């Protein structure tokens, strides 16, 4: 039975029903027609693809679970919806946080709250064990603060990263070199606006402190090349905010740096070697920060044929070390970087004699506080 068209119907019910139907059917049609993307450059990850169907997968619920994930990842206007949600969070609900990051002015800061004492205690214990195993005479430890350390802890929910650094300083036998002071208000330029990593400027500031601790006069003569001015860091996708500028990645050059070569050892059988410390072909990767030493790898070796000494340096590290290591390599014949998340400690001890080398533990607070695999 169809009711006659009253005023109410015209002014209220028809438009309401119309909008709803257009929305539901329109979104459905667009999302069916939308081509599935492989990756999200904004979120720095591979997106779920259409799940395979089989009787078993349907019965045990895997299919429907994967389908929900697929639909969420491949939703038409996904990026726009994520920006809209971020807008509502910040402008309507007046929250300073979205997806675990703070947007302050035109910069993004990872939230750093809660110090995982058991991870830190374990890290201290393992650093001591490795220090002993290397039989090296010169072992240094430095902790890299995240940029959130610059923010006012009365305004944002943040832990003082000095507490974490102090625990490691007090409980390890390595010589502690303090980099925590780098993350203070006024030093914003030391970190990318949209990425947790430090900029080339930040890496140089850290290098100068470390070079001093290693007994070298730091090199200060560089030329800079902007390799990209549209670097979208990994925090950009989390913040999903239009107010954040894209970053510029600078590569430093001088004769020493330009004379270096680097090898990445993905496994004992596969390695990639180039006559540079900058992997330019990686600049187009999902993470353009990979231009520095080519991104994460179990073992990376830098050679400096122009080195004035025979000293060799070993760094146990996370990704922050990638932009810093070439600067340190200016003073060493070789610098070898081990990422203990991807190579076992015993493998290193069995295959490398570290006793005559300088050893540096260089880890960011964010990785130490979240990754239990960091020093396996």
């Amino acid at each position, binding site marked *: 039975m169809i009711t006659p068209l009253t005023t109410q119907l015209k002014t209220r019910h028809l438009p309401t029903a119309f909008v709803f139907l257009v929305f539901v059917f329109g979104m459905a049609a667009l999302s069916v027609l939308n081509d599935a993307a492989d990756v999200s450059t904004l979120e720095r990850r591979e997106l779920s693809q259409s799940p395979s169907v089989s009787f078993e997968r349907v019965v045990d619920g895997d299919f*429907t679970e994967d389908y929900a994930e697929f639909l969420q990842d491949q*939703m038409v206007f996904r990026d726009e919806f994520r920006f809209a949600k971020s807008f509502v969070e910040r402008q309507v609900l007046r*929250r300073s946080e979205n997806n675990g990051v703070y947007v302050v002015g035109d910069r993004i800061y990872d939230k750093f709250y809660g110090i995982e004492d058991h991870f830190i205690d374990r890290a201290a214990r393992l650093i001591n064990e490795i220090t002993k195993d290397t039989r090296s005479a010169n072992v240094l430890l430095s902790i890299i603060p995240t940029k959130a350390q610059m923010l006012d802890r009365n305004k944002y929910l943040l832990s003082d990263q000095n507490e974490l650094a102090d625990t490691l300083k007090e409980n390890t036998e390595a010589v502690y070199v303090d980099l925590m002071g780098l993350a203070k208000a006024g030093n914003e330029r030391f970190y990318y606006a949209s990425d947790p990593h430090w900029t080339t400027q930040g890496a140089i500031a850290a290098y100068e402190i470390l070079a001093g601790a290693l007994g070298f006069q730091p090199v200060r003569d560089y030329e800079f090349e902007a390799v990209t001015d549209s670097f979208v860091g990994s925090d950009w996708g989390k913040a999903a905010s239009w107010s954040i500028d894209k970053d510029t990645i600078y590569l430093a050059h001088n004769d020493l740096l330009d004379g270096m070569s680097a090898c990445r050892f993905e496994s004992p059988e596969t390695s990639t070697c180039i006559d540079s410390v900058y992997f330019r072909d990686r600049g187009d990767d999902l993470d353009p920060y990979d231009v520095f030493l080519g991104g994460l790898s179990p073992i990376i070796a830098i050679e400096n044929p122009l080195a004035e000494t025979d000293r060799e340096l070993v760094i146990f590290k996370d990704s922050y070390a990638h932009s810093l290591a070439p600067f340190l390599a200016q003073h060493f014949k070789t610098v070898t970087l081990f990422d203990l998340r991807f190579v076992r400690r015993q493998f290193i001890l069995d295959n490398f004699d570290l006793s005559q080398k300088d050893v540096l533990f260089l880890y960011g607070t964010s990785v130490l506080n979240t990754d239990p695999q960091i020093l396996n």
Partner: protein
Amino acid sequence: MVFSSLEFLFRFLPVILLLYFVAPRRLKNPILLAGSLFFYAWGEPVFIVLMVLSSVVNYFLAIAIDRYRDTDKSRAALIASIVVSLGLLGFFKYADFLIDSVNSVFGSDIGALDLPLPIGISFYTFQVLSYTIDVYRKNVPVQRNLISLSMYIALFPQLIAGPIVRYRSVAEDINDRTHSVEMFSEGVHRFTMGLAKKVLIANNIGLLWESAIATSEPSVMLAWLGIVAFSFQIYFDFSGYSDMAIGLGRMLGFRYGENFNFPYVAQSVTEFWRRWHISLGQWFRDYLYIPLGGNRGSKLMWVRNIFIVWFLTGLWHGASWNFAIWGLYFGVLLLLERLFVADLLARIPRLFRHIYLLLLVMIGWTIFQLETPTEIFRYLGDMFGLTDIDIVNAEAWYLLKSNFILLALAVAGSTPIFKTLYARIIPRLSGRAVAMPVYYAVLLLVSTAYLVDSSFNPFLYFRF
């Protein structure tokens, strides 16, 4: 499948709406049945068998009840319906609970069955029973069309999170219902509001509760923020689902009764339960409390009946002792209110009556949501400053600041303010033909944005 999901909104819903409205009248019920079975099978591909079995068995038992009316056979068929329905519910939902309880009381070592709980079984079991009992009581005519009865039991709007729709209330709609643009648009209004309540308020404020229970820096203020947040989460989640169910029902031509009526504005526990999950309260009243004798016998019988009903109301929410205790907690409060507190309440200012109710409800939610006595007492201890923690701390202030607008919206949304505004202002709004559709479009878009970007979208009724 849940309503607050992309697969429901942009896959299932458009397909079922299209098929349903395009189909001729005689095919509408079969289409709804097929769609509902698909909807259920999406989340429960195995236990759909159980629901179909329950529908078929009860279909024949109801016919038997009707055919052998006023004989022992009719009564036997009713008993069989109750035994089969409650038997399935009892076996799948309560077997392990019983085994676990027996083991702890007698120190025995009976192995758990580890049965997964079929989603929505508590809802559809109660719906089925409302049908067979009402047929026995001659309150409704028997349904001779298996598809129509199965559709009533499986109808996707109310299938997995209620409301518990009694057969009697939709019997006419099942056989012959009208559709109109008005009903559809009213349905859109309810569905959109419900979706926003669930996705924008409940999920969002649920994160505040999660923060409060996961904190390593507890404080009295944080404990209160947490329980206030959970109180809002469960209300907006549950009533949001009911709104979506009522809305979808209306789009399809069904008129379901209300399930929530601003429970947090109540001024007594008695009133609260008249406003909270109304369909469950009415079910227990009509099919348990009154058959037990209600308050017609001696005072002792009445007390017994109250305890039975509230013990079972608690257990209905989940097979665990905390739910039973939560139910009994309200049973005791209701008894106390009727016997002693009602007079006192009548004499104190209204504000204090609200505080009294909200305080008791929030204490109730800690019992409901935290499972073990240790957790419950620790949390209550935190709330009332009985544990060695700070009164306020940075985390509590930060969370209050971050959630202030959301909390303000939740407070306002828990009262009839918006409803009153809607009823008074909208009809007078000159641009309402534009304003209201824009308002719904914004709510739908923002809800979708949160569904696209959020990983926190819990289904709170997996234990019901």
